């Protein structure tokens, strides 16, 4: 082992001793240090925050005692776990990433103060200890930001998926007739969901006709058209005929200009006329009860 490393091992253990000796003071000052915006008493209870701080300080002390100040090493695994949990829960609670990182950063000053008092007469030792603390706390702060970001992304992805499912409900209009109102942009991900839920519903309800209603789709370009045609083809393979409804005049014109060939897909201006056509295809007719009207 080289001397520099040995030195830093000793220094780190020294910091641990300072922490052990002044635990209460550091804790109190640290919590005071967290300004109102970091403390966010609107989002987290004072007592919970205290418990988190105490736990973190304990882990910090344990880690420093080992003499290993590389935050990526296994010595710090428990600390990483704790900070990871903290970041994830704060992301869910609605904290800002900076407020989360400040949990770690706001400990710098109280810790420095104690270390400075301890090494008053040894400037070199003090400088080294400061360096160790700074490096360690910085990588911890960065780590909270990373975890925070990842869990936010995960949350957004989950919400998007839920939204996808929500926005593509297949409704049974009649025995043998399904309707699928599509709302919004029909991109590849949406199409996959739309197609799957439609095909599944066709099988489950043993339907012969599926109406895909695009009233809620603002623009039909080549990609949307291609996705629609794919869905129609797949439905056909399952034994169901498709009618596309909600083809407004401006959409019809655009489709023609684009040169899209909707093959032999039946299209209707609105859902009602598509439904009427579906019933006719099934041989169902309605007769007005003249006696009542």
């Amino acid at each position, binding site marked *: 082992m080289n001397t520099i490393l040995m030195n830093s091992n000793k220094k780190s253990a020294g910091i641990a001793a300072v922490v052990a000796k002044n635990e209460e003071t550091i804790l109190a000052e640290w919590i005071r240090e967290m300004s109102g915006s970091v403390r966010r008493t609107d989002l987290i209870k004072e007592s919970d925050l205290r418990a988190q701080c105490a736990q973190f300080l304990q882990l910090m002390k344990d880690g420093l005692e080992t003499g290993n100040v590389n935050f990526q090493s296994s010595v710090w695994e428990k600390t990483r776990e704790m900070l990871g949990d903290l970041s994830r829960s704060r992301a869910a609670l609605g904290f800002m990433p900076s407020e989360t990182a400040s949990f770690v950063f706001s400990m710098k000053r109280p810790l420095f103060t104690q270390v400075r008092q301890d090494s008053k007469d040894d400037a070199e030792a003090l400088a080294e200890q400061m360096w160790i603390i700074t490096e360690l706390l910085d990588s911890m702060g960065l780590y909270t930001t990373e975890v925070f970001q990842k869990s936010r992304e995960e949350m957004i992805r989950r919400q998007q998926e839920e939204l996808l499912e929500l926005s593509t409900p297949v409704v049974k209009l009649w025995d043998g007739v399904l309707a699928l109102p599509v709302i919004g942009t029909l991109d590849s991900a949406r199409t996959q969901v739309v197609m799957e839920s439609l095909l599944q519903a066709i099988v489950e309800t043993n339907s012969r006709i599926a109406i895909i209603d695009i009233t809620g789709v603002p623009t039909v370009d080549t990609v949307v058209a291609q996705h629609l045609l794919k869905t129609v083809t797949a439905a056909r393979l399952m034994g169901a005929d498709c009618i596309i409804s909600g083809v407004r005049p401006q959409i019809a014109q*655009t489709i023609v200009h*684009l040169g899209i060939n909707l093959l032999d897909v039946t299209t209707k201006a609105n859902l009602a006329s598509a439904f009427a056509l579906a019933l006719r295809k099934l041989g169902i007719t309605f007769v007005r009860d003249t006696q009542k009207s």
Partner: protein
Amino acid sequence: MAVTSTENLPLVSEPDVVAIRRRVREISAQLGFTLVDQTKVVTAASELARNTVIYGGGGIVQLESLNGPRVGLRLIFEDKGPGIPDVELALRNGFTTGSGMGLGLGGAKRLVNDFEIVSRTGEGTKVTITRWK
């Protein structure tokens, strides 16, 4: 010809295509385009924006509101991608080097009044379209 206002939007990914559609819809409505004309220019913009993202490797779009003597909307799509080796062929219905229907470029041309394309292999592609009110 007076350009009333100009704005640039980035075109890097699919959400940008959605944003451009929305913006073109807004501007064309403000300019007083009919619903049919709005839909035409929005659809053309959607096609060209997607080509810029997929084939051009991203780029920018410039939106110009023209306010006199004729009222219109001009859109300029520009990328520094691989360029199109044979523009005439690319404009042909059904021609695609990707997995599309090969209708976007020619379709966009049919949906607007003026269409101009400059493309150089290895340098990039610039498509300018104008729809008059």
